[in-house]
């Protein structure tokens, strides 16, 4: 199944993350295109109605593949972040990892590997 852009009015809307992956329209506008999407022919989880699925936003965001980290303390000392900078913290193999909330508002998804164990965060 191939889903085509289905909402002509979408091209001038930017999404704002309100909290944890819940998207609401912002006052900002930008020219965006929803990319076509290849879908398998099911099956669907009971209760999931594929007719309500929209490819709105497909191609707008880019997953953050984490390949390197640094001590948060050093990032603070180097002024790469401030004490009040908003972060999302998760536990991964070997300890805690912070992701910048501002950046995750774009990426929505981050994933990587730590000590041989994969992890993924969504926002």
């Amino acid at each position, binding site marked *: 199944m191939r889903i085509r852009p289905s909402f002509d009015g979408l091209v001038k809307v930017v*999404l704002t993350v309100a909290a944890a992956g819940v998207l609401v*329209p912002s006052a900002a506008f930008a020219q965006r295109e929803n990319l076509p999407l290849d879908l*398998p022919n099911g099956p669907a989880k009971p209760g999931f109605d594929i007719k309500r699925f929209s490819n709105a936003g497909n191609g707008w965001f880019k997953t953050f593949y984490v390949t390197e980290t640094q001590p948060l303390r050093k990032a*603070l000392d180097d002024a790469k972040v401030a004490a009040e900078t*908003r972060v999302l913290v998760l536990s991964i193999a070997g300890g805690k990892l*912070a992701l910048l909330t*501002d950046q995750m508002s774009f990426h929505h*998804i981050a994933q990587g590997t730590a000590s041989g164990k*994969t992890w993924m965060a969504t926002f």
Partner: protein
Amino acid sequence: MVPTIDGKMHHFNNVGLYDALFVMQDTESKTLWNHISGEAVYGPLVGRTLGPIGNLLQTNVKQALEADPKTQVAISDRPYYVAGKQVGGTGGPPGPGGTRNNLSPEAQLQDFFVSTLGKEDTRRPRMDMGLGVWSDKTRRYYPVALIRERGRAFIDRIDEKSVVIYIDPETKNPAAMFVNASIAKVEANEVRLDNGAVVRSGILLDARGKPQASDRPQQIFTRRYGFALTFPGAEVVGQ
């Protein structure tokens, strides 16, 4: 979440909307996934879950370091803001969230979001903000307004365990933490418990100020519709 399926790491992208929430797809199987529950919802991997699901704690650098000075950070090539100034990044303009996320309950969903919604639970307004908590036995939503009405902190029970539901005095985010207490109240910049312990900067400290190991239920700070449609029939505290 754990993106490994049958021993192989899958790669996930945000590909669209369902119930006005973003939907993930893995490039390997093309399956669609719910990003809150980690469940496969459409495609060959239906029946699978990207578990175990861990908490993504919304906090700030100060609190993160106080909780664990060894915390690492990953910074991408996207621009971001430090003290109100845009810094870093070669990967295009800042994300649409920036530093001005719209948390207002008066925010409106545009039609193209609404068209993806299922049958809504009308016990609270669609755009209400709250803390959703879930476990194997419990699915419960705490409106932020209710937490404020109860003094910004109170004790509840989840699966026979006491939990403090509170609005963090520093970050203003709602949160939940398992504690051994029956009364909680916010004073100054901390949540004080009747056993002498306090929650300060997201850390549980005993009566002598010594950090204690703590556990949190699975939780998410979210719009009402997102939690209600992900967990149909979930309890709504105060309703």
